[in-house]
């Protein structure tokens, strides 16, 4: 049985855990406010909120219900637009109507849910962040003008109406952003959490999030006995032990993005990860799934390669480790046995004299797969490189570590000529193909540009842009 709360209703179902949440909501529960527009996480019409007990409070996040296995709802609070509706419109809803934020209305519930999720999540409100939280919702009618104004108006309503000594949830309830049944969710979840049994089963199909797997082959997953591992607490968490950073394989990209630990070591961390997918995708996609998915253009893997990460695999009690750069054997081919799962990924904390940079170019700036991406990690003293790792995505059948380029740069002192030579070497290491993201020629050009951008940004005193001409 899968037990969870859907809006104000306790659910117990023995439906297969691999069917997607969207189908359960629309077809089983007839809650038709949640829409199906693309079934691959690119439109956001099916957005719902997922509330989870974290350290004694309920944390909500927006997710694409079309890509989420029902089993992952176990022990959670699922909120659709019907679960936000009250007698009168919530401020988010009212301002959306008043500002012309809805026209045909098909994408509208998704926007309402995402924006409500923003208010549930965040007490430090500003319009830019609110719009950022809508990055996974597309609208073809409104041009977003009314929606952006509604975000700004709703923030004003909250700021002007909130009581300073009330807690955030109480403020949201009293200002009608959410119905008052939200108040009791925590207690109800505590009961469910203790009751529910893990839906994990031994299975050949391992689903860790599923944001890409369900796009590739949802029909085959729905019929399978999938092993859902993304809710496995043993696989979660981001921590530092000594000089080693550990990221559990079930950590989501959004957890990694917002990790204070990682932000401390990489000051622009949040900016880099802004360009990854959309918020609802980042909320579900896990690092383990991302690594095993082996997309040659994966953004997170690209960064991890440049951090010279190690993948830790386990099969029951058997454990082994392998450097990420040696993990990929060929297109979608891994050094991983059938029953092995990724336990965690680790890398060393950046040393004092280290620098890091990430670059990504895509057709559409946001919510798009990269055409080419690249990361660099370099340790240096007075411009002399002692240790360097560079990765390049979208230019080979695997997420590529630029071995020869790194070897060339090791123990070299950075100057314009060296960088030019290194770029030439990097272009000999890659084997781009022409595909939907661009031609081979164009990708080579882009990689060189990104390569230069790395070193101009990291060593502005040592690399002279004018001389690179």
């Amino acid at each position, binding site marked *: 049985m899968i037990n969870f709360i859907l809006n104000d209703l306790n659910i117990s179902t023995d439906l297969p855990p691999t069917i997607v949440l969207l189908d359960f909501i629309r077809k089983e529960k007839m809650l038709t*406010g949640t829409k199906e527009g693309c079934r*691959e996480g690119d439109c956001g019409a099916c957005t719902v909120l997922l509330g989870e007990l974290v350290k004694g409070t309920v944390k909500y996040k927006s997710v694409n219900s079309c890509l989420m296995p029902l089993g992952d709802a176990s022990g959670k609070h699922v909120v659709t637009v019907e679960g936000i509706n009250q007698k009168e419109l919530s401020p988010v809803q009212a301002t959306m109507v008043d500002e012309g934020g809805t026209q045909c209305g098909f994408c509208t519930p998704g926007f309402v849910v995402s924006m409500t999720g923003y208010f549930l999540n965040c007490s430090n409100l500003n319009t830019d962040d609110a719009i950022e939280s809508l990055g996974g919702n597309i609208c073809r009618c409104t041009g977003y003008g009314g929606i952006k104004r509604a975000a700004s108006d709703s923030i004003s309503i909250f700021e002007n109406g909130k009581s300073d000594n009330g807690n955030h949830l109480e403020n949201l309830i009293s200002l009608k952003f959410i119905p008052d049944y939200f108040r009791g969710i925590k207690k109800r979840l505590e009961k469910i959490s203790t009751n529910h049994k893990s839906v994990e089963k031994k299975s050949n199909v391992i689903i860790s999030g599923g944001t890409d797997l369900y796009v590739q082959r949802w029909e085959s997953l729905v019929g399978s006995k999938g092993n859902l591992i993304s809710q496995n607490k043993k696989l979660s968490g981001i921590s530092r032990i000594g000089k080693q950073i550990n990221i559990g394989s079930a950590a989501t990209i959004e957890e990694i993005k917002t990790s204070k630990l990682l932000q401390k070591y990489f000051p622009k961390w949040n900016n880099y990860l802004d360009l990854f997918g959309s918020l609802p995708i980042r909320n579900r996609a896990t690092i383990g799934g991302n690594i095993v998915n082996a997309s040659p253009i994966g953004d997170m893997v690209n960064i991890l390669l440049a951090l010279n990460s190690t993948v830790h695999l386990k099969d029951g009690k058997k454990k082994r480790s392998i450097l990420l750069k040696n993990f990929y054997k060929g297109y979608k081919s891994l050094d991983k046995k059938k029953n092995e799962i990724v336990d965690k990924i680790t890398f060393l904390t950046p040393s004092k004299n280290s620098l890091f940079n990430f670059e990504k170019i895509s057709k559409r700036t946001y919510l798009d797969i990269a055409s080419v991406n690249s990361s660099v990690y370099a340790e240096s003293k007075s411009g002399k490189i002692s240790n360097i790792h560079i990765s390049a995505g979208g230019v080979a059948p695997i997420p590529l570590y630029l071995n020869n380029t790194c070897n060339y740069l090791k123990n070299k002192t950075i100057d314009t000529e060296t960088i030019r030579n290194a770029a030439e070497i990097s272009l000999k290491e890659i084997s781009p193909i022409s595909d939907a993201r661009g031609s081979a020629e164009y990708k080579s050009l882009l990689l060189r540009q990104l390569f230069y951008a790395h070193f101009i940004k990291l060593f502005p005193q040592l690399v002279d842009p004018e001389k690179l001409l």
Partner: protein
Amino acid sequence: MKKEFSVVGKPIIREDGFDKITGRAKFADDYKFDGMLHAVMLRISETHAKINSINYSEVENDQAVNSIITSADIPGAKKVGMIKNDQPIFCDEVVVTPGDVLAMLVGEDTTRLRSALSKIKIDYTPLPTLTDPQKSLDPKSPLIHPELGSNLIIHHPLRKGNIEKGFTESDHILEQTYTTQLIEHAYIEPEAVIAIPLGQNGIKIIGSIQNPFSARKIIAAVVNLPLDKVQVIQAQLGGSFGGKDDTMCILSARAAVAAIKVNRPVKIRYTREESILESYKRHPYILNYKVGFKSSGKIKAMQIDILADGGAYCSMSPFVTWRSVVQATGPYEIENVHTDVRAVYTNNPYTGAMRGFGSPQPVFANESLMDEIALQLGMNPVEVRKINGLKAGSITATGQKLQNHDVNLLTVLDTATKETDFQNKWKKYKKDKSIIQKYDFNKPVFNNSQFIEPDQLIKKGIGLAVSYRGCSLGAEGIDAAACYLSIQNDGTIYLLSGLAENGQGLRTTFSIIVAEELGITTDNIFYLETDTSRVPDSGPTVASRATLMGGGAVKNAAEILRTRLEELIRAEWKLKAAEKIIFKNNLALITNHKSPITFQDLCKLAANRGVNLATIGWYKSPNVDWNEQTGQGDAYFTYVYGCQVAEVSVNQGTGEVYLDKITAVHDPGTVINKLGAEGQIYGGVTQGAGYGTLEEVTTENGLIRELNFDQYLILTAKDIGEIKPIIVEGKEIYGPWGAKSLGEPTLELTAAAISNAVCNALGKRFFNLPLNLEEILLGKKLRPVEVKRGSLL
């Protein structure tokens, strides 16, 4: 004197806002009926093939399959079309494009039905394909519809003045070729329809249907029933933009055939992939322009040759290209014009109506051309447009004299350029150093490396475009619309127009018109469900004609009922002719009378006196005329004008175009629904910006590569910068209080303005839409070879 309005032009919120914002609004896929079955489509992955036989024996006894629906089940017309009946409901003889459907399986579970599809054995012979429209008229090319004898769908000539003389008198001649791409409507709601059999009473259809009356006509022909036995109800429509017309007519007809056969409700609901695969798109155009002009900037002659790829079916191609031939010169007065517009058949996905309807393509060409003329003469873009722009009394390319309305082209141009400080910025950005000219991206990719610090790579640019647009259908066809209006005894009102809500806010606009006319508020008006059995056929909701034509009918109905109420008051109080009655603030105010009567009391009185307070309003457009041989005549009875200014930043290193700000100045006549009008501008500009920079459906031998939103990219909230709408309300004698059109005018010129802005930034002109990364960096599109779903790249 300008009329003082109570409701018109005020920000009135949508009448359907509550239902939509709470998710209660029911879209077609949200309906479920007892005993309802689902249908899935049988297709082959071929572009052009003769079907020899289809063997269903493997699925005949399949538990999942209740019924197999083939063309043998069609009681009536097996081929349909908006203009030409060239599109089969089921293509079981020949497939002419990959979206074609051969047959359907009907059953309870779509997943099981889909797996049953693979068991059907289809024997077919691939035929030679034709995918290059430039080869369509080559006698060696295969004929897409052999029975028609030619691949020419339509040819619209236009001849004005003496083209040779015009070129002879010119100081300069410029010739350019422009191309525009195939694009998808990308409504977020995929197609869905349910057919419910009613036995002797025919059939009821509920669907995501843009034009219920068009659908009714086609369904009736296919199932061989009279019109009164086909009831079409429009569910809430999740976006259309011209796209839920032909496809939905055919889907409705298929569902109807199946429902009648199995005698149970049947639903068809497309996945996004099926939607993009089968639905029609915007025509790609190849546009050749030759223009002759004096050193003063005055254009003397323009010769235009346009080829439109109509794809596998005729659809709306003749009308789409007709608008192109009328407007191809742009809003300029030119003595000598010689235009040929042709649409041809190919095996590509078929093309038809889409917001803009044959105008975004020529606007991109002629507005690029105007900037080129300016650059060649050392003028700025504003000057050359002022010299040639249409003014009151100007004669258009079709020989029509512009009158009876404010010809506000130069007004919108001035407003937009002043608002944006256009001329100063344009000069400054043009002077700023651009590296892209000396940086030859085509050749030495691996040669002597050139690189500039990232910040210096960002260059700013500003560009503008203007356009004019004929309102409503023009000489395309009969142009009239109806409205049903009924006042209840308590003063509440039922309203229903024959035009359909497509999400644009038509119901709100029409409610405002009634409220204004009767002096009441919109919350007393209940807009009825759009149903072909309740209101007269009013033609399609297309051509930005809803406010003008439908609104005209609504105003007519409201006037009729107001007149009856006035007559009642006059009789009841025995008023003199000089005494006036004003309907305002929910009251009827009578001059010299102390106490006004409330609208509610008045309606009650009318009921007691037996006054008929229900009526059908009607609005018929003024006559237009057209000579098909010469392309001369009064093409449309009135026009609207717009100017947009795009401000962009271009990354010269990567080819990324950032849309910083778009200022959109439009004259739609009087604005009825302020919130709706501004919404049209935001939405139209964003669609137009996507057309200019990002959107493209590409095909490989007719097969579409971008079948979902991971590949077919539209702008997100984060990708579009500030949009500033400015409305100039010009005077107009037609339409409700002089209200005209806005939906399409907002979209047609954005791409041209962006292209001109990018040119201003880089000093390099682009001739092919969209201006994506590769177009900007390499000056050419490099087509992908293969596309897989998800990350399987």
